[in-house]
């Protein structure tokens, strides 16, 4: 692996670019509990970056820091080479960071199409009167956004449920709709919080394929949290391993797999 400021080339020959997001010495506390302790890592353009660790390691907290849902007490978040001021989650989203949730946060009352369409809200620039009256540029804009949405729906193979209210869908499909909504925003960075949690083997395989395809087709930078070691090792280019809020490993899947601390964390060795 060739690692430098310009990026590196993966084993399968994909070219990874410069640093998109950098976390510098992040510490997050909830009262007396330290969820994240002085963690630094970076995410590079075009790569699939995984954050793994046992239960309660602080993975989701880390993702929530990146997407602005949690504000760390210490440390800095750098995005596209600039220090990010404290932002609220919707402002982070407007910057081009889309995410999915561990427990799925979809608009249950809306159809799949409407759900995915909300991902395009940031691209709608015409004013409220033009839209209400379907006048001026509003129509062409809506058509444009619809095309982008349909593309994602096609891509994730959910055409057959386009008009179905989300509340009627099974779990696996909901996960896919959520991914479609995040992708519809054409994000610069896509955050996936346990995209395969609670899925059966077949669904996991489908989801893995979609994640790889997304990365391949659109060059989307992806950071994901996953429990299932096997899946992570197959998917990701580089892996951060967390345990009890600390970073205990960072590197390619192979490097991480042979890291003694990581093995201990997963197999359970007494901490003393």
């Amino acid at each position, binding site marked *: 692996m060739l690692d430098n400021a310009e990026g590196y080339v993966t084993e399968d020959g994909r070219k990874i670019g410069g640093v998109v997001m950098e976390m510098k010495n992040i510490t997050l506390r909830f009262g007396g509990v330290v969820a994240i302790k002085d963690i630094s890592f970076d995410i590079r353009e075009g790569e699939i970056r995984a954050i793994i660790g046992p239960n309660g390691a602080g993975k989701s907290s880390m993702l929530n820091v990146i997407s602005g849902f949690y504000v760390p007490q210490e440390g800095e978040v750098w995005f596209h080479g600039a220090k990010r001021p404290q932002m*609220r989650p919707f402002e982070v989203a407007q910057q081009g960071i889309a995410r*999915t949730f561990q427990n799925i946060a979809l608009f249950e*009352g809306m159809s799949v199409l409407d759900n995915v369409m909300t991902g395009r809200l940031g691209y709608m620039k015409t004013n409220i009167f033009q839209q209400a009256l379907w006048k001026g540029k509003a129509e062409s804009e809506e058509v444009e956004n619809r095309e982008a949405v349909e593309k994602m729906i096609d891509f994730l193979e959910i055409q057959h449920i386009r008009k179905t209210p989300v509340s009627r869908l099974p779990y696996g499909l909901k996960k896919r709709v959520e991914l479609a909504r995040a992708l519809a925003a054409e994000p610069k960075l896509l955050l996936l919080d346990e995209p395969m949690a609670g899925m059966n083997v077949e669904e996991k395989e489908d989801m893995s394929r979609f994640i790889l395809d997304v990365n391949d087709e659109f060059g989307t930078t992806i950071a994901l949290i996953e429990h299932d070691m096997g899946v992570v090792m197959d998917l990701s280019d580089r892996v951060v391993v967390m345990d009890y809020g600390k970073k205990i490993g960072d590197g390619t899947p192979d490097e991480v797999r042979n890291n003694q601390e990581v093995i201990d964390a997963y197999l359970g060795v007494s901490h003393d």
Partner: protein
Amino acid sequence: MPEQLIFAMEVILNGLMAGVLYALVALGFVLIYKASGIFNYAQGVMALFAAMTLVGIMNGQVPFAHVINATFGTHVYNFGWTVPALLAIILTMAVMVLLAWAVQRFVMRHLVGQEPIILFMATIGLAYFLEGVADLMWGSEIKTLNVGLPQGINLWIDETTFNFFDYGFFIDNLDIVATVIAALLVAALVAFSQYTKQGRAMRAVADDHQAALSVGISLNFIWIMVWSVAGFVALVAGIMWGTKSGVQFSLSLIALKALPVLMLGGFTSIPGAIVGGLIIGVGEKLFEFAIGPMVGGATENWFAYVLALIFLVFRPQGLFGEKIIERV
């Protein structure tokens, strides 16, 4: 045509017109409920507040005159000017937007993620607070409101029906105007919530806060917008009811009539609010006409609630409400 049937027709027409006014108030409830899951008890008081503010601005009243005079020993009550109706309506709308902002900033923002019942209690508090503020600002005497809407019997309908049935229907011009305005309002609201970016964002916020944030929607902005729209609907309802029966405290009680309307139509449906309003309007007039004389009258006071109760037993989600599905 038998006389009774002709009377009944007139009663139905009048019922429809009254129903439109009920629907107007109910609409305000539905809007906030859809967008934030809050049943806004203060909707009726908001209509009262809007109507009082409108009258006050039109008459050039000094707001908080009593407080100012008591504090500084002055005797100011009036600016000495009158404001044309249209301008006054625009100014009142500005006040309603300000109110929406204040509600969001000082009440709702601190209650994000709380149980619906807590939010509901907060709106009860808001209702009483707003009522007090309205009294302090503009005084508690009954005022007449005239923004130039036509009132009185519609002669054309009177004549036409007279030619047909030998009996002239009495339809108030104001009711006709109210119907037209309500129709426009509903069309505008539907266009807004279905076709605009803000409307889509509003529906998204109502559904899931976290998800809304993750697609870049500002909750604060949407809530201020929703309360502003509810303020606008309150203003329209306030104008209609205020013109019809004077601006007085009882205006805030019409909100209670909206409750059975909502139970009938469903809390989450804009068409439901309309249809529910019409059914209650027609139902109570017709019931009073047909059954009223037998039981000594005054059935209009309770008919709507009994109808709502019956509905609660057989169709708790209302005619158009989202079906309640219990997953076990």
